[in-house]
C-alpha cells in the first residue's frame, strides 16, 4: 500500500510528540547532601565575615527625647516653649574612625502609614507649577490652608518634616570646638537630580515661583527659605527635605543628618568629650515617640548589622546539621534496602 503524506497526519517533531530533549534532575543524595554541606560552610563563612565586620563598626546612640525628668531636653518637651535648645554630651574612650555619619532616629513614627505616605503631590515636587495652584486631593487635609490658599509642598508627608537641628562640638579643655558637618549629598543622587525639581525661577528668584502659595502649616519657613546659607539647597532640592521625603519602611528608623568629613575630623572623631546642641522643635512625645542622635561609621556591608551575621551563622549551621541528618537517613535507608 502506498502511503502518501496526508494533511491530517500530525507532524513528527520533538515538540508535538513531547519528546523535547530535557534535563531531568532528581534530588539524589549525591547532590543534596554535598549541596547542604557546601551551602552550610559557605554561610558560616559569610556569617563570620559579616559578624566580624559588624563588630568593627562603631555606633553611638543618644536618646534626647526628654522623656525622663532628669534628661537634658526635658525642659523642651512642653509645647509652650518656643525655640528651645538643649544639649546632650557624650565622651569617646577611643577614636571614632571616619568618615562618621550623623543620623537622627525616630521610633514609633509611622512614615509607613499608607495615607501619610501618599499625602504629597508628585507633580508639585517635580516642579510643575500648575499643581501649585491646585494641589492634588491626596494632600488633604494639607491641601489648602484656612484661607483656601494652596499649600506648597502640600500633604502630610512634607508638612511633618523633621525640623530639629543639631550642632556638634568637640569639648577640648572645656572649650567647645565646632565640628564641621557636611550636609551635601546626604540624599540619593536620583532624588536630588531627577525625582525632585524646583519650579523654574521667576525673574531669577525661586521665591517668586512660589507666589500665591503658602508654606506647610508646621513649617517655620517656606520651602524656598529652607537653607539660608546655601541658595542651591532650597525649595524641593533641599537635602534634608529629600531625606525626609524618602519615607521609612518601618516605624523605627534613622535618617542621615550630616556627614563628618571635613577639617580635623575627616579621619574620624578623636577620643574625648563632645556635646550636641539640639534646637528642639519636633514634638514626638504625644504619640510616645522617641528621638535620638546616632553616630556611626560604615564598612563594605553598610552600617552595623548584627542580625545578618547571626542569621547567616544560624542558617549555615542548620544546613550542616541537616546534611548530617540526611546522611544518616540516607545510610539507614540504604541499609534497609540492602537487607
Amino acid at each position, binding site marked *: 500500500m502506498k502511503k502518501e503524506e496526508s494533511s*491530517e497526519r500530525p507532524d513528527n517533531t520533538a515538540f508535538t510528540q513531547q519528546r523535547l530533549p530535557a534535563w531531568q534532575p532528581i534530588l539524589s543524595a549525591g547532590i543534596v547532601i554535598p549541596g*547542604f554541606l557546601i551551602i552550610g560552610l559557605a554561610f558560616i563563612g559569610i556569617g563570620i565575615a559579616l559578624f566580624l565586620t559588624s563588630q568593627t563598626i562603631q555606633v553611638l546612640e543618644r536618646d534626647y527625647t526628654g522623656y525622663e525628668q532628669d534628661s537634658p531636653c526635658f525642659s523642651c518637651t512642653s509645647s509652650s516653649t518656643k525655640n528651645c535648645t538643649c544639649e546632650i554630651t557624650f565622651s569617646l574612650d577611643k577614636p571614632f574612625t571616619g568618615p562618621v555619619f550623623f543620623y537622627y532616629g525616630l521610633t514609633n513614627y509611622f512614615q509607613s502609614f499608607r495615607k501619610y505616605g501618599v499625602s504629597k503631590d508628585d*507633580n508639585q515636587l517635580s516642579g510643575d507649577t500648575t499643581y501649585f495652584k491646585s494641589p492634588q486631593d491626596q494632600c488633604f487635609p494639607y491641601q489648602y490652608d484656612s484661607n483656601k490658599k494652596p499649600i506648597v509642598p502640600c500633604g502630610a508627608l512634607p508638612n511633618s518634616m523633621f525640623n530639629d537641628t543639631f550642632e556638634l562640638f568637640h569639648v577640648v579643655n572645656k572649650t567647645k570646638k565646632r565640628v564641621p558637618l557636611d550636609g551635601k549629598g546626604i540624599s540619593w543622587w536620583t532624588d536630588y537630580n531627577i525625582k525632585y525639581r524646583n519650579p523654574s525661577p521667576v525673574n531669577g528668584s525661586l521665591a517668586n515661583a512660589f507666589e500665591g502659595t503658602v508654606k506647610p502649616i508646621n513649617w517655620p519657613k517656606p520651602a524656598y527659605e529652607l537653607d539660608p546659607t546655601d541658595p542651591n539647597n532650597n525649595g524641593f532640592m533641599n537635602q534634608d527635605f529629600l531625606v525626609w521625603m524618602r519615607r521609612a519602611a518601618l516605624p*523605627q528608623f534613622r535618617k542621615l543628618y550630616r556627614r563628618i568629613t571635613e577639617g580635623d575630623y575627616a579621619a574620624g572623631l578623636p577620643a574625648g568629650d563632645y556635646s550636641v546642641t539640639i534646637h528642639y522643635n519636633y514634638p514626638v512625645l504625644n504619640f510616645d515617640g522617641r528621638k535620638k542622635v546616632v553616630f556611626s561609621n560604615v564598612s*563594605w*556591608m553598610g552600617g552595623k548589622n548584627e542580625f545578618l551575621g547571626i*542569621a*547567616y551563622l544560624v542558617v549555615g549551621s542548620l544546613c550542616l546539621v541537616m546534611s548530617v541528618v*540526611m546522611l544518616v*537517613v540516607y545510610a539507614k535507608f540504604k541499609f534497609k534496602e540492602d537487607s
Partner: protein
Amino acid sequence: MNGACFRETLRICRRWPDIMAIWKEDVRVEEERHVRANDREYNERFSYADNRIKTAKYNAFTFLPTNLFEQFQRVANAYFLILLILQLIPEISSLSWFTTIVPLVMVLAITAVKDATDDYFRHKSDQQVNTRQSQVLIKGTLQNEKWMNVRVGDIIKLENNQFVAADLLLLSSSEPYGLCYIETAELDGETNLKVRQALTVTSDLANDVARLADFNAEVICEPPNNKLDKFTGTLYWKDNKYSLDNEKMLLRGCVLRNTEWCFGLVIFAGLQTKLMQNCGSTKFKRTSIDRLMNTLVLWIFGFLICMGIILAIGNTIWEQRVGSEFWAYLQWNKFTSNAIFSGFLTFWSYVIILNTVVPISLYVSVEVLRLGHSYFINWDRRMYYSHKDTPAEARTTTLNEELGQVEFIFSDKTGTLTQNIMVFNKCSINGKTYGDVYDEFGHKVDITEKTPCVDFSFNPLRDRKFRFHDSSLVEAIKLEEPLVQEFFRLLALCHTVMPEERNEGELVYQAQSPDEGALVTAARNFGFVFRSRTPETITVYEMGQPVTYQLLAILDFNNVRKRMSVIVRTPKGQLKLYSKGADTILFDRLDPSNDELMYTTSEHLNEFAGEGLRTLALAYKDLDEDVFDEWMKQLLFASTSLDNREEKLGVLYEEIEQGLMLLGATAIEDKLQEGVPETIACLTLANIKIWVLTGDKLETAMNIGYSCNMLRDDMNEVFIISGHTTLEVQRELRAAKESIMGPSREIFSDGPDTEKTDIYSSDSVFEETIISEYALIINGHSLAHALEADLEQILVDVACLCKTVICCRVTPLQKALVVELIKRHKRAVTLAIGDGANDVSMIKTAHIGVGISGQEGMQAVLSSDYSFAQFRYLQRLLLVHGRWSYHRMCNFLCYFFYKNFAFTLVHFWYGFQCGFSAQTVYDQWFITLFNIVYTSLPVLSMGLFDQDVNEQYSLRYPNLYRPGQLNQLFNKRKFFTCTLHGICTSFILFFIPYGAFISAVRDDGTQISDQQAFAVTIATSLVIVVSVQIGLDTNYWTAVNHFFIWGSLAVYFAILFAMQSDGLFNIFPNQFTFIGTARNSLDQKIVWLVIFLTTVVCIMPMVAVRFIKTDCYPTQTDKVRLLQQATRRQGPQEQNLRRVRRTSSRRSAYAFAHQQGYGELITSGKNMKVTTSSTSTYPLSSPERCPGTRGAPDETTTEAETNNTGFKREFDQNQDVTVEDLEAR
C-alpha cells in the same frame, strides 16, 4: 460523503439546554399534532419548529455585550469587577485601578477571542447543515430546497444513500408494496437494514408528482417526543382513517438504502425530530479539579475575609492607641477619624490588597494549560490512525486532567472493541480443519498481513476483499470432494441474505447480520456463488454453473432454537434439509452414526473457540418425499392456526430437524480492533474497571468478553442476571452477592438504606480483599429492574465486586443510567467510549466521553469529548496524556497557590509595621505584573511540558496511574500544605529583610531602609524564590523551561530597571515614583546578602523535606523515576511489550442473526423486486416492475401479519417497557 453532512446537524446536541430554552419559550405544550400535506398555510397556524438549526450564540452586533455579560456571570470575573469598583473609591483604594484592570482586561480579551472563534465555527457549520439540498414538492413541482426551508407538511423526495432530512411519514417508494430499507446506525447503532412500509393507499401514489401534489391528507399524531421506536397517529384521507405506526416512519438520521427513491411527508422537523429530542441533556462538564478549585477559591475568599477582619481590628486598635496620638502628623478629615469606621474602611482596603491570593490569572492559566494538553493529544502521532487518516482529537479542551483519574470505563462493543467485520476464518469439514498455515517443517505460522493469500482468480464472481490463507481448501474444492462441496452448498443455501447485483458479477449481499454475510461470502469465493433468490427458488452458481434450487421452507432462527434450516429440492429432485446452528444444539440432533465425526469436530470447535472465534455447526439431511409431504401439510396447518402458532411451528421444526448428518463447523472471527485485549489488560492493571455496555445479544457480548480476555475460564464464577421481574432480579443479584461475600455479609445487603451509609467505609475496603475473580453479565430487561431505586444499591455492590461487568441488550438510555448510577454511588471518574448514536447518551453522561472516529456515523464523535480511531489509543490517552495532564495540572495548582500566598501575605505581615493602613509592600507595577509577567511563563511551561516519567515508563508501569484515581496529587490536604508553604515563605520573605533593614544603611551612609528599597528587596527575593521553587518543581527541563525561567528573571530585572529609570519617570512622574530605587539598593552588597539569605531559608527546608520523603517513603513514581534515570545512564533498552494470551475456552457462540423473521419475509416474497421465478440476474432498472396486484384483500392481511411478526423483535417489546419505566422515574 453523506456522513460528513450529518455531523454538523448532530453537533447541536451539544448545546441542547440552550436550544431547549429558546424553543420552550416559543411553543406552548403541544397536545396533538395536526399536519396537512401540501398545505403550508394550514400548518403554519401551529407554528411548528422548522428544519433550521441554530447553534450559534452571537452575531456581529450582539457579540460584545452578550459575551461580556456572560463573562461577568462567572464568579471570578464578577469578583474582580467588584474589586475594580472598590478601587475607584478613594477612601479605601489601596491600589491603583490598573493593578486590577490590566489583568482583568487580558483575561476578558483572551476569553472573548476564544468564544468568538468557537462561535464563528458554529455559524459556519450551521450554515453548512441548513443549506443542504433536498427535493421538496412545492406547487406541484419538485424543487431543490435547502434543509432549513423544509416545513412540516411538505412532501420531500429522498434518493438512495441520502440522509433523511426530517421525520417523515413514508408515502411511497421505488420498491414494490411501498417498502423501503433504511439503516438506523445513527439512531440506535444497529447496522442491519430495517424495512419500512408505506400504507397501501399512499404507496399507490408512487412517484407521480401530480398526484402527490394533490395529496391532501391530514395526519393527527403524537406530539414530539424522544421515543425512537414508537409512533402513533392517524391519517385521514378521502374520508378514510388509516392508523400509523413506527413502521411507516423514516426518522431524521437514518440513511435510505437499497431503495432508489421514496417520498415522505414531513411530520417533525428540525429540533422536534426524534433524533434531536433523543439527544438527552448535555450537562456542562467540569472536572473534579474544577469543582475542587471552586471550593478552594471560596475558602480563600473566606481566608481573605478573615485576614481583612484581623487587620481591620488591628487598624481599629491602632487608630485608638497610636493613630489618634499621631494627630499632629496624620490629620484626616473628621469622618475617617472614627477608629471603628477607619477599621471598616481598612477591611475593604485590605480586601483589595490581598485579592491576589485569589489569582485572577489562575482561571486563564488553567485554560491555557488544558488547551495545550489538548493540542498535544491532537498532535500525537501514536494516536493517529493512518488507514483512515484520522488523528486523535480533543474536542473538549476542559477535561484533560480528568483523563488521569478515570476509574470506570464503559465501553460499547460493536465498532468499539470490535471492528464489526466478520471474517470467515477457519472451518472444519468432515473432521479436517482448514484455515491454518504451516511452513515446510509443519509448524503453524502466525498469520500476518504479509502471509500470502489464496488465489481465487478461478472464480470470476469472487469477492475481491475476501482473504483466506490456507490453499488446501481450494485444492479440496477443485478436487470436487463431495463433502466440501456440500459444506459450501449449505452455506450458499441456508441463510436469509438478499443479493443485489448492480452490474454483471458485482454482487452485493444484504445480510441482516454480518456473520451470515461472511459465511455466504466465503461460499461465494469457494465457488458456490449465491446469486439470486425468489420466494420459491435460490440460484447458486456452483463452480460457474447455474443451479436453481427450489426453496420449500425456511425454518427460521430464533433465540430458543439457536439454529436455522432450509428445505430445498435440488434440480435432480432430491429433497434436502440444510441446517446450521449452535454446536450444542445441533449435536443433540445428529444421527448416531456421526458420533466419531462429532467428537473430532468438537475438538476443532474447542480449538476455534480458544482463538476467540465464533463457531457454527453445519449439518444436512436427505428427506424422504412422503415424510416431507406429510410434514409440509402439518406446517401449513400450523402456520394458519390462530393460537400458539409459534409453539406449534417450533414443535414441527423440532420434529424434522432430527437425525442430521454433520458436515462440519465454521469459525468466524468477530474481528476485534487491533490491540484490544492488550489495552484492556493494561488498563486493568492500572486499576481501571471496564464495563461493556452493548445492545448486542448475550451470546455475542460474552463471546467478545472472552476474546477480549475480560471473561476467562479460570474465573470463579460468571453470574448471569436475566430475570424478568423485579423479584427475580433481586433474587439473582442477592445470590450473586452471597456467593461472592459469603452469607455473613447478607445483613448489609438487606436494607438498602442502612447500607448507603457505610458503603464507602466498609465495602471499599472489603472490595480490595476479594482476590477471586467474578464476572457479572446482566441483560437489558433485568437491568431495567435492577436500576430501580431499591435494587440499584445491590447492583452497584455486586457489580463492583466483580472484575468484569457486561450489560447486554441495553438501550441507549439504559447505558446512560448505568453510567449515572456509578457516578452517583462511587464518586469515581467515569469514561464512556463508543462509536454509534446509541452511545451518545452514555458519552454525554459520563465525566468523559470518547468517540471512535473514522466510522460511518459521526454522532458519537460529535457528542464526545475526545475522539480517535482505535480503541487501543485509549491506553495512551489515559496512561500517558491523562496521567501527564493530571500530574501537570496538580503541580501547577500547588505551585500557583503557593506562589500567590507567598506573594500576597507579605502584606499581612507588613500590616503590623504600617499601622494596618493597607500600605502595599511592593510597587504597584510589581503587583500588576507579578502574576501575568514575572511568574506566569515558567509555571505555564512546567504545566505544559513537565513529565515526571516518560511515556514508555508510563505505559510500562500502569500502576503509576493510581495516584490520579486516589486524587493524591491535588486535594484539600495538598492545598493546605502548599498554602502553608506559601505562608511560611511570605513570613520569611518579610521578616529577614525586616531584621536586616531595621538599622541598615548604604555603604555610603545614606539610607536604605526606606519603603521603596525595602519593596525592591522583598520583590526581588520573592521573584528569585519562586523561580527557584519552580525550578525544583520542574522535573523535565526542556529548552523552553530554561528559556522561560531564566527569561522571567531577566525580564524581571529588565522591567525593574526600566520602570525605575529616569526616562519613564520624566514622562509619567505620578506613576513611576520608584525612580532610582533599584539602582540605589541593588548596588549594595547587603541587599544581595539579604536576598541570598532569604532565598536559601525559603528553599532549603523544602529540598530537605523532599529528599527525605523520597528517600524514606518513595512513591511508585519516585521509584520509576530512579529506574528511568538508571536506564538512561545505561543507554536505552528495548523491552518487549507484553502480549496477552487468550485462554482457551469452549463456547458455542451463536450469533448469526440479529433478528428472527427475515425468513418469512423471503418466503412471502415481499422484499423481492421480481416476483416471477426467474433465474436471471436482477436488472439494474427494470422497466417492467411488477408490483403485484394492488389492493387485494388478502394482500392486506399478509401485510398486517408481516408487521406483527416479521419485523417485530422481542427486543422492541422489552424496550418499550424499559424506556417508559425509566422515564417514569
